[in-house]
């Protein structure tokens, strides 16, 4: 009895990924059979004219996540170092608790703050027509992944053996040399893992991004312009899923966006687990 239960649940978990990709492929099949794979690289998205270019949303996803990580990574690692090296040890657990609780705040609450705090602020400060821009999405994402990066980097830094540090001190290395030559290189695998995890989380983030990104399917002009409304894969799915009728080309194009998103996050994990295959 128990064996049967254990085996069936294990097989259920085993089949999870297969089921997910299978049903998404099934639902997006019409669009692939009709338009091939070229539409992924095209830049026009007009569902009512059967144009389903994925490029703007794909680009928006990658750019917002990239900028978010560029901001959050140095800040997060610095905060982790600060908490370990500078904060008195009686305060450390409290700071850590705060960060862990922050990591649990739902994305929709960040979205609310983004829409009613960050967006008006950007509008005023940068004198924009609308604050709903790629920059708003990137800033919001960076705040959202910051706690995760900090908590995981701190774990990695704490794992660096004490005797390494003592030997470095005995050699008379300065504090900065210890950080730069011993702590950071030793903790690097953990920090890299934290980065990839937050990359995946930021890429799949839906409601917060959807509220602030502006949802306009257009490549920014010039390409590095962060101050225009944009679109990400997730925000497009969230925005348009409600209006697409079941089984229409629009519906299956949205499903294929989901499939693309899933493939991208799977690729990120495989990248982070690379050494497993060696």
């Amino acid at each position: 009895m128990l064996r049967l239960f254990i085996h069936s649940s294990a097989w259920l978990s085993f089949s999870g990924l297969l089921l997910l990709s299978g049903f998404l492929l099934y639902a997006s099949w019409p669009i692939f059979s009709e338009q091939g794979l070229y539409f992924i690289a095209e830049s026009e998205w007009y569902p009512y004219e059967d144009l389903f270019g994925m490029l703007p949303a794909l680009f928006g996803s990658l750019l917002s996540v990239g900028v978010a990580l560029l901001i959050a990574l140095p800040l997060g690692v610095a905060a982790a170092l600060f908490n370990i090296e500078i904060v008195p040890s009686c305060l450390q657990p409290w700071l850590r608790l705060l960060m862990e609780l922050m990591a649990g705040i739902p994305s929709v609450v960040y979205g609310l703050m983004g829409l009613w705090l960050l967006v008006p602020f950007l509008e005023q400060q940068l004198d924009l027509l609308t604050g709903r821009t790629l920059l708003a999405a990137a800033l919001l994402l960076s705040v959202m992944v910051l706690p995760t990066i900090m908590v995981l980097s701190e774990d990695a830094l704490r794992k660096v053996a004490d005797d390494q540090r003592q030997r470095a001190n005995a050699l008379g290395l300065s504090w900065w040399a210890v950080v730069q030559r011993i702590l950071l290189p030793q903790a690097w695998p953990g920090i890299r893992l934290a980065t990839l995890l937050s990359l995946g989380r930021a890429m799949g983030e839906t409601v917060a991004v959807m509220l602030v990104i502006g949802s306009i399917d257009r490549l920014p002009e010039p390409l590095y312009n962060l101050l225009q409304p944009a679109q990400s894969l997730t925000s497009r799915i969230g925005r348009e899923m409600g209006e697409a009728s079941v089984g229409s080309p629009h519906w299956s194009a949205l499903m294929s966006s989901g499939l693309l998103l899933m493939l991208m996050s799977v690729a990120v994990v495989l990248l982070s687990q690379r050494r497993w295959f060696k």
Partner: protein
Amino acid sequence: MKWTIHPAKLLLTLVALPALLIPALALGYIVYQGGAVISWQFISTSAELSGFGASSGVFSQLAGSLLLAVGACIVATPVALGTALFYQLSNNSRLCHHLELLIYLLQAVPPIVYGLFGLILFVQIFSLGVSLIAGMLVLAMVLLPMLTLNNITSLQRIAIEQTDAARALGLTESALVLRVWLRQSRRELITGQLLAIARALSETAPILFTATVFSGVVWPDSLLSPVTTLQTHIFYLAQEGNHPQSIDVAWGSALVLVITIVLFSLLARALKPSGGNL
């Protein structure tokens, strides 16, 4: 030595401060905005069919969120526990290795993709419609990887002597699982459940199209009727409410949601056997 002022330490502090202050300020802002709105009446009454109305309480939303989260946890628990037991009992290390990678992959799949999957399979193919049960099943899938990993860690924490002694006494496999493993790790397993509920409460994207409606439901009549939840309530109000009062309700709902999640995570932390030394 710790207190000598070092230019590098000063620089690190300057970089780290925004990372520590911004999340704290964000939390403070939610409390400030939401605190002005919530009262016992706000939590304990439900705004019957009022939509964007003025004096809306959020009781039905809170109830819907909790129902979905607890239901999802109940659905996911047996499968997660079974998979974890399979992992621990199996002596095929290759298979375990693949299973672990697979769970990491499932964990990386963005929640919105699970939402799309649920929309295809549960809402359309099984024709459950937009309903409580569809939402529970989708959320259960979202929770499955984290619960499984959590259960595996809990089982691994059991002292090897316990297992050896049980085996030496000639206990059958089911007796080993039921009377030694589950009993030894029950507190950690419950911690995992509480964290899973907290996680389910913070997800919005997967239930947006599968389980929830904006208004009109006070208490779901059956598993097949849709619900209202705090997460989607905040989302709709933030997105469409131009009325200042509906934004107030959104902030109030956000604070209620954050408090609920924090309560679950703190409870989990308090139950953790080794004490909160993280």
